[in-house]
């Protein structure tokens, strides 16, 4: 079973994405900030990461920078899910930028394609 790590500061969104991904046959982990996200990523080596941009303390791009410094994490695809306008350039190497509120089917299509 493919593993997805959800990094978002809003517990409601974590709840939503967890249910959605699990309903589609993926196992999930979640983190509410950059620090926790990196810890879980190192421990679980997920197949995909969804990343919010704006979070208290450290924000999404920093997570990406730090994760790229880790050999075993740097090739994990990242989907940015954020409500930040103009956030689509924040992480240039992200496989997709999904704007909140997102279209569920579109998101699942991107996830499935990325994990194939």
């Amino acid at each position: 079973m493919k593993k997805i790590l959800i990094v978002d500061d809003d517990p409601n969104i974590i709840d939503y994405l967890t249910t959605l991904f699990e309903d589609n046959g993926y196992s999930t982990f979640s983190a509410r900030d950059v620090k926790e996200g990196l810890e879980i990523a190192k421990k679980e080596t997920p197949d995909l990461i969804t990343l919010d941009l704006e979070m208290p303390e450290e924000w999404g791009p920093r997570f990406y920078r730090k994760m790229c410094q880790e050999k075993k994490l740097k090739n994990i695809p990242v989907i940015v899910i954020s409500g930040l306008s103009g956030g689509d350039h924040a992480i240039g190497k992200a496989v997709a930028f999904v704007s909140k509120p997102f279209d569920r089917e579109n998101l699942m299509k991107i996830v499935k394609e990325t994990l194939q």
Partner: protein
Amino acid sequence: MSDEILIIDKDTSHAKALGVYLERKRMEAYLASTCEDVMVLFDNISTEIVLADPGLPDMQMISLLKQIKTTHPKLQIIVMVTPDQFDHAMAELKHDAVHYLMKPVKSTALDMAMYQARSWISLNSRLEANEKKLKVFRHTQNLFQQLFDEVPCYISVQDRQFRLTATNRMFKNDFGDEIGSHCFEVYKHRGSPCQHCPVADTFKDGQPHTTEEVVTSKSGEQYNVITWTAPIRNGDGDITQVMEMSTNITQIRQLQDHLTSLGLMIGSMSHGVKGMLTALDGGIYQLETGLEKNDKERTQRAFGQVKQMTGRIRKMVLEILYYAKSRELRYQSTDMVEMADKVVGDAMAIASKNGVRLEANISPSLGFVDVDPTWLQAALVNFVENAIDACTYDRSKDDHIVKVDAFETASDRICFIIQDNGMGMDQETREKMFTLFFTSKGSQGTGLGLFIANRVIRQHGGSINVESEIRKGSRFQICLPRSQSDPPKRVDIPGKELETEKDETDNQK
């Protein structure tokens, strides 16, 4: 210096002899032997010296001379009399004459008398000129003092030790009459000179300098000022003092801040709305799939989420409406115990969802208070929800608790203490938490909640006291007067007021 002289003497041959003598001294002498002669001549010549024998014991000439002296006070009268009339003449004319000569007049005595008369005339004219100058000087001084005082900026003159030697009216109004104090004490309440001081720079290089500063008035208000300096030099060209002129640009800076805030608001609000809509979407998805799968637990959780999101969206819309619209508070006598229970009840669901214990200790004797129940309740809920958020965001410990105490003080004020052991606030957050659009909650805050809560409490005549320590938690004490003595206050549109809300610094740590 006068070139003309009027010689009055009944003894015309004596007069003539004097005339000849004086003409040799380059003077133009006019001779008169009667009062009539004097009057005619006096109208036609501009003499400033009269050499007169008053012709005693006849008093006619004496009175004429006295009269002329009153109309021409600058006239110098030299009296010449025979020795037997000397005392009489002096007794009659007294100070009206500048000199008394004994007849027959000796040339040396006459020269001395003439010299004295001319000195008096010269002194008089110099005195007059000085008086005129003094008048002009006083007028100019008055004008400059008025300019100095009425200029719509703060002016101070400082010596090398930055001591104030002169200040204008506006300065005195806002910073006090602090002549002799140091500039840095008065403007910045500092104990030592500022690091970059334009006055010091001007003393050093004699050039004008400009800086932008934040200064604190005697009443504790902070002003943004633009400061210009200029050297004041003595006669030798050395700089002895420096003038500092500061223009208050607080309103301009506030307007700039406000415009920046408005820009931020649009960003932060649209971001917040997007987050809430996504979460609502999530709730609906879970509700749908929960029903499909007949998963009771999921359905229940989803329902809770939809309810919470609807509540949040409602709150945000209300806040935007409050911010956008001018309205009056509607005071009514309100049961405070009931309100406190509602506040705690409203927050209980969020607290338990986030694993935060919420403890309430509401005194049953709070009684009734004049408040606008809708807005006061919203404000109090805001403080409690913030306390819960502070716990939710805190990862440094597992056991989180929010305590709400409500009680009545001896001075008949109703106080609420909302205390949490969450993440606490750093100094920047503490200073800015009541500022419009400031949020420390990233995508989940709009920066409206505490701004409005603070405003509502203040409009109720209340006070907010905040203590906070990072990673230890925060304590908010909100106190309200029991009755509103003033008529309900109007809630201004903050955008028009150009006011950046700050916490009550006197109460704040």
